[in-house]
């Protein structure tokens, strides 16, 4: 059979995109459309097999902009709605677009439980560390001390690190990218789509209006990113810096940034990234690395195999069907204790 080709344009809907000029969401939309085209081509599946679900917030306008089935739901509930869609029809490729407020505040419960169940969803978590659509209140990922409309004297709440939350909830896939890094985001999302189970890709996103440059100190431009982020690749040494002269080692308690090569440690001592390791300890530490003490980890941090919920549901149904004597409602109604009146 002839292989069908797909491009991002095939997945673009006819709806006018209404995000603010300069918003990071535009780049994320581009990355997602490219990733979908790549997945469609690799797996030879058509538009109609994709479903995009969102909650409420700027990012949750997403389904309108993708040419496939879409569900723009209510605040925080995208995780639960996606779980229902995927469980009802495991053949669909279910993608969820959600923000830090949507998934980590009002929808926090659904988020961690979808992770725990390992439903085969592909979650794009837009993290701009602010409530954009309600015009600038702090979110569960806003940096401590940040002045916002609802924290005029600075926040006094510790923020979540989404990766720590995902791994803490026994997540099987976590990746991180930056909105402007379209190829990296695309790569993470394709890996996420190929992962059987709940895949969370956090995208560090800039809100140009209410939280401009929140990620700039480590992810602002290419030069900054080279020095203050580390792009992890499975099987590769954890090296970073423009000249790859910095690395990460594990000292038995925590990760440590070291100088590599002349005057520093040997490259052999630098950790090699194993995204497939079941043990989550190093992944957890990597996901939690915070600027300025550490580089911010990008790329696929964790990608491990485990039974996923929707497949397990199907497996149980097949197993029970194979042995049960009840094959229709008439059988069911007559099962157990009955008596006849003549």
């Amino acid at each position, binding site marked *: 059979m002839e292989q069908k080709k797909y491009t991002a344009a095939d997945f673009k809907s006819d709806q006018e995109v209404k995000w603010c000029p300069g918003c990071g969401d535009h780049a994320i939309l581009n990355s997602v459309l490219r990733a979908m085209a790549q997945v469609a081509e690799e797996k030879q599946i058509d538009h109609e097999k994709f*479903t995009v679900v969102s909650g409420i917030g700027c990012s949750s306008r997403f389904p309108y902009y993708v040419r496939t089935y879409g569900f723009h739901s209510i605040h925080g509930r995208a995780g639960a*709605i996606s779980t229902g869609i995927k469980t*009802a*029809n495991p053949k669909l490729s279910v993608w969820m677009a959600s923000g830090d407020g949507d998934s980590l505040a009002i929808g926090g419960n659904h988020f961690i*439980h979808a992770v725990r169940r390992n439903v085969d969803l592909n979650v794009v978590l837009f993290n701009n560390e602010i409530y954009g659509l309600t015009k600038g209140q702090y979110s569960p990922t806003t940096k401590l001390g940040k002045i916002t409309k609802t924290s005029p004297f600075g926040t006094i709440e510790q923020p979540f690190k989404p990766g720590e939350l995902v791994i803490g909830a026994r997540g099987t896939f976590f990746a991180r990218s930056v909105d402007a890094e379209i190829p990296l985001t695309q790569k993470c999302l394709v890996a996420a789509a190929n992962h059987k189970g709940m895949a969370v890709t956090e995208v560090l996103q800039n809100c140009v209006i209410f939280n401009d440059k929140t990620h700039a100190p480590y992810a602002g431009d290419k030069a900054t990113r080279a020095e203050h982020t580390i792009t992890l690749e499975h099987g590769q040494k954890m090296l970073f810096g423009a000249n790859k002269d910095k690395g990460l080692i594990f000292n038995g308690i925590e990760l440590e940034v070291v100088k590599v090569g002349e005057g520093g440690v040997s490259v052999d001592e630098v950790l090699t990234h194993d995204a497939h390791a079941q043990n989550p300890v190093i992944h957890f530490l990597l996901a939690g690395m915070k600027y300025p003490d550490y580089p911010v980890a990008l790329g696929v941090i964790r990608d491990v195999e485990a039974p996923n919920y929707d497949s397990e549901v199907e497996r149980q149904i097949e197993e*029970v069907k194979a042995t049960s004597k009840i094959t229709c409602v008439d059988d069911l109604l007559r099962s157990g204790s009955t008596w006849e*009146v003549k």
Partner: protein
Amino acid sequence: MNQNVKELSDVVIRFSGDSGDGMQLTGTLFSDASALAGNGISTFPDYPSEIRAPQGTVAGVSGFQVHFGNRKMITPGDYCDALVAMNPAALKANVKWLKPDSTIILDADAFTEKNIEKAGFKTDNPIEELKLSDYNIVMPDITGMTRQTLEGFEMDAKSVAKCKNMFALGICFYLYNRPLEYTFEYLTSKFAKKNPKIAEANIAVVKGGYNYAANNHLFANTFDVKSSTQEPGIYRNINGNQATAWGFIAASEKSGRPLFCGSYPITPATVILEELAKRKDLGVKTVQAEDEIAGICTAIGAAFAGSFAVTTTSGPGLSLKSEALGLAVMTELPLVVVDVQRGGPSTGLPTKTEQSDLAQALYGRNGECPVVVLASSSPSDCFDYAFQAGKIAMEHMTPVILLSDGFIANGSQPWRIPSMKDYPTITPPIVTEIAEGEQFRPYVRNEQFARGWAMPGTKGLEHRIGGLEKDGRTGSVSHDPDNHAEMTRLRAAKVAKVADSIPAQEVLGEREGDLLVIGWGGTRGHLQSAVEELQAEGKKVSLCHFNYINPLPKGVEEILGGFKKIVVCELNCGQFADYLRQNFQQYTFEQYNKVMGLPFTIRELKEKFVSLLK
């Protein structure tokens, strides 16, 4: 068999004891034996919300009432002819349910000084203190005789004590001349795999109780209740929650849409989820969600994906589901929400019955947000109304709230098993294709105002739905004022249109008279009994009982016009009465209300009706 056998038309027995005494099993075995012997039966369990409340206290008393008779039984009975009380607390808790000539069976061994004190008696003689001296009391050493019966069984003391309920059951079997075989068969098969010796022990104790009662002439006479004349067919016992679960599976089969239930455990609705979880053999998918909101949201997702989706809950859970229910209204997806009502507000009385969620079901959402509301009215008709709820939801593309309550959900009755070929096919407006070059428009409607159901995965029908108002023609987001007004009107018209496809309102009795009794949902058995008794006395009373609440069936106004007085009876403070006043402003609606966590009694209803007839 005892020579002095008196024949009775119907009997009510209440089994009561500590919540660990096995009274639910005892009651179930008695009612099964009666049902199998051909009696009409109706049962109701009455248990505390604590799993094991402090032993020996009134709070820890668990009860099971069975009403059996020579005709179809439609209520578990108000007051009991026989009370089995396994300890002083059980006697104290149930004394209010005794008829003046009741037989009381007590375990003498349990009436120790300590137990009497624990039950809160002021004196050391509970019988005198409760003024029961004139009742027919039998008080054998049940625990002691159980122990004697099981000598040689090599069982530990705890296992022996667990069998004492079977001794009481044996006494009741003798008193009411019940056949023993069914119970023996049940016990044998129940313990066949786990421990056949336990079955033998239980059977020995049942026989022990039976023989003890026979040999010691415990009762001046015994009783018999003849079998009822029932329509031929295969019968089974069924409770309301099980019937609800099975009704959904039937609707799934008849529609060809796979059944999905997203739900969170909550008393008294949990059994529906449990029953559905068992049915993987019929392809039923259940998600035990992380909370009530996820319960309904997973169901909404499944409905979008093409399943017949349901979510089950009780009042507090319905509150939590409100916002998502609005989403289902806005996206016009088929969905059934079951609310098995309990005493409220808040946590209220989790194990007790009430009908106080009606207003919440009708109105409890933001915006103009109409849904179809139905109510089941007996344990077995839960099957039919669950089926109807599914049929309406799928054919009209609307959420439906199905109201049940703790009374009918836990109560059980014999049910003549229907055949699925007698149920109608369900035909949802599924869209599978579109003409080349055309775009699917999700809010194009059929003659019933139902939109098309296009499922993800179908080629060419890609579309977006959501909570934002949509343009009725294109399906795009719209803030246009005229469009919003029109979509609001259409959503309401779609629900109102359901009145065309449901049966016209029925009346039990004449369509003209002095008093029209109105009820809805789970009070049907009590209202019908009270009305029929008054009709037999020649009173011009009729019953108009509602299962379809929104929209109301056709013909209601004509019925209301035929009576001098109308009384609306419900287990709340008048929510349905208010709804009727809003719909039929020309009539005066009297009310009879009860909010005690208990069903009506036929006695109190008759008193009220007689006073209104004066």
